[in-house]
């Protein structure tokens, strides 16, 4: 990386930081818009999962590792699975889903 260790290195880093942050910010806004505007609920869930990932990266860029960690744990571990399970429960009668009796008593 001899070519990068030059007097212009700081300028490079500044440009790259700007590009990275700008792209992350635009991506987050675009994902938020698509998630809300999507008529297909499943696609909205997938976009929401991607939204959580990009949000965690933005927290990381803001040097807020604590919040990035919380967003990663909640977003990847719980929310995606919760939304998918809720979607399956919303439409139990549609063909292609596992029939799950709604509100039936387990005990």
């Amino acid at each position: 990386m001899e070519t990068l260790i030059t007097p212009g290195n700081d300028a490079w880093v500044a440009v790259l930081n700007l590009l990275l942050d700008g792209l992350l910010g635009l991506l987050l806004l675009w994902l938020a818009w698509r998630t809300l505007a999507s008529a297909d609920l499943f696609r909205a869930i997938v976009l929401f999962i991607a939204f959580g990932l990009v949000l965690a990266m933005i927290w990381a860029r803001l040097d807020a590792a604590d919040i990035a960690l919380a967003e990663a744990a909640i977003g990847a571990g719980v929310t995606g699975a919760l939304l998918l399970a809720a979607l399956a429960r919303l439409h139990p009668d549609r063909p292609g889903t596992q029939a799950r009796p709604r509100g039936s008593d387990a005990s």
Partner: protein
Amino acid sequence: MSSLYLALALFLLLTLVAGLWRVGRGPTAADRMLAAQLFGTTAVAILLLLAEAMDSPGLRDVALVFALLAAITVVAFTRRAWQPERLPTSEPERLAERAGGAA
């Protein structure tokens, strides 16, 4: 080295943007879900690069959590949301359908 890490992170972010095309296009739910899984892997790589570039070791834990929990969403998907409309009766038929869907 910081600029190299940042450049690589930027490149990986661009591949993530390219992956969004697959989420939008589909055509099946599994395609969209797998694209989201791919984003998880990309995010792990980006976070590890950022941890070096920004000299912030805490970000490695974020990457660790992402890597560890990536499987949960796809398990929920296969167990709850996804079931092929018409179950192909045999493995060759399933492969043929997969090939047809990709075309």
